[in-house]
């Protein structure tokens, strides 16, 4: 049974984010959920508004970083949080849609700003069961 889920893993100063899914795309989507969960309770973020993100990178791992850093850029410049994602991958290109809403301090009680997705523990791979895993540590 291939799992679709996200989780955090510990790091001394910061926090690790991990997405798992039957496809690479789903693993990327789950990793994005794990990123939002560092900042707030994802169940409180309504998918009201849609933002499109495209990135290109020479390999899967750099593409994951670009995807997560692209989301951080949209969060910061639009003052939004995102809770729903649809990722399409085509070789070195990622096309994605993220749904979310404006930050509401009372409602979302955002914990911490993420400064960047890092190369630490960065990995995009399939485990023995065929589940895709997309993960890295984020600097907060």
């Amino acid at each position, binding site marked *: 049974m291939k799992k679709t889920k996200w989780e955090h893993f510990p790091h001394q*100063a910061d926090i690790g984010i991990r997405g798992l899914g039957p496809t690479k795309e789903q693993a990327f989507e789950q990793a994005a959920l794990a990123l939002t969960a560092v900042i707030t309770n994802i169940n409180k973020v309504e998918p009201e508004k849609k933002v499109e993100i495209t990135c290109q*990178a*020479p390999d899967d791992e750099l593409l994951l970083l670009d995807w997560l850093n692209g989301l951080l*850029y949209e969060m910061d410049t639009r003052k939004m949080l995102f809770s729903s994602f649809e990722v399409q991958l085509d070789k070195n290109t990622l096309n994605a849609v993220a749904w979310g809403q404006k930050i509401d301090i009372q409602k979302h*009680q*955002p914990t911490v700003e993420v*400064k*960047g997705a890092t190369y630490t523990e960065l990995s995009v791979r399939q485990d023995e069961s065929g589940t895709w895993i997309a993960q890295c540590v984020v*600097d*907060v």
Partner: protein
Amino acid sequence: MELKNLKKQSDYQWLIEPTGKMRVPIIIYSDETLIKEMDEKVREQAVNVAALPGIIKACCVMPDAHWGYGFPIGGVAAFDPNEGGVVSAGGVGFDISCGVRTLLTGLTIENIEPVKNKLADLLAHKIPAGVGSRGKLLLNQSEMDEMLVGGARWAVERGYGTSEDLTHIEEQGCAVGANPQYVSNEAKKRQRDEVGTLGSGNHYLEVQHITEIFDGKIAQTYGLQKGQITISIHCGSRGLGHQIATEFMKTMVTTAKEKGIELADRELAFAPIKSPVGEQYLGAMRAAINCALANRQVLTDLVRKALAGLLPKAELKLLYDVSHNTCKEEIHTVNGKQKRLFVHRKGATRAFGPGEPTLADEFRDIGQPVLIGGTMGTASYILAGTAESMSLSFGSSCHGAGRSMSRSQATKRWHGKDVVMNLAQKGILIRSPSFRGIAEEAPGAYKDVSAVVEAAHNANLSRKVAKLMPLVCIKG
């Protein structure tokens, strides 16, 4: 970290001789207890740094070192551009020029206690902090470029402070050689409304009182007296710095891949100082330093204005402003010769000692103030740079406590509300938009800052001058 692989030079200085690809040794300035608590990753990362091209003398590790990105946090390394020396975006980190500034207030604890609650609410209201907060300034393209070139000087020219402030900031408030042309539009867009914002995570604004003076003579010159109130601000270059770091790390990683350079760690990707990417990064990184200096200057102005109504007797003078994530071009004496070096300080504070020609007149005989932040429940310290640190660590010291526990462990162990209540019983008021954020930053999740400062003092990296305890802490 295991002690068996280290050669003890003294109780506070430990050596790792070069082996394999290492070009220089590693020197750890710390005591046995702190070294035993250090992650083995600190050693691995320091070994990788010691193998970088053009590194001079040694990779220095500060007492508060922990596992970082490429460089250990608490790592100092200097590179000679004439010997193929490099600059590394990971060696400066994501929050370029994150730092601390401390303001003297002329107030005593007796002035503060009766209005402490009001003061906490007022500062929480006036200082934009936390995720999604915006500053009052909205910069257009040309103002942005002026800010990135001028730093705190730009802010003072705009009315956010005095010329006296500028002499109390490293490099007189302005990093020379900043080039906004190398700062991407994305980075500038992130900063458009973030000047004068505190950020989140371990960043804070704190009202403190001086509880102990260790060196009366230096304290007098710095203007520090027991019982007096100080205000400290810890923050950095905000979204602009994060974006520059992210972009240049990727550029350095992909350039290395194209050129077939094998990296020990992708986060330690580098570019020769004398190369287009190296020069572009330095131009952009210095712009981010100026962004951080402008940011802390505007925040200072917000604090001054906020206090003017509630505590009209307050006279806020800047003691000093230090940055602890930087790469700076400096002159150092190596083997009797003066050299122009590029000194990376990742989670390390510059600690220039007496006689340094670049220091402001009043600090030239006693060394610059070295500002060490604690947690929301523990002490902060003011130290002074020493002459010894110039030869020991390129004039560098520790930067703070450093975490001992992960954020997820901390939230499992503490509830934000309890942390706030416990600290209130100790007379420390916390204001923050997020209880989970408070739990993640609970004092117990950090190492003992006093032990770190003691080690820095005993290793002669800097000299203890004063101890400060928090009264009010605004967290992002």
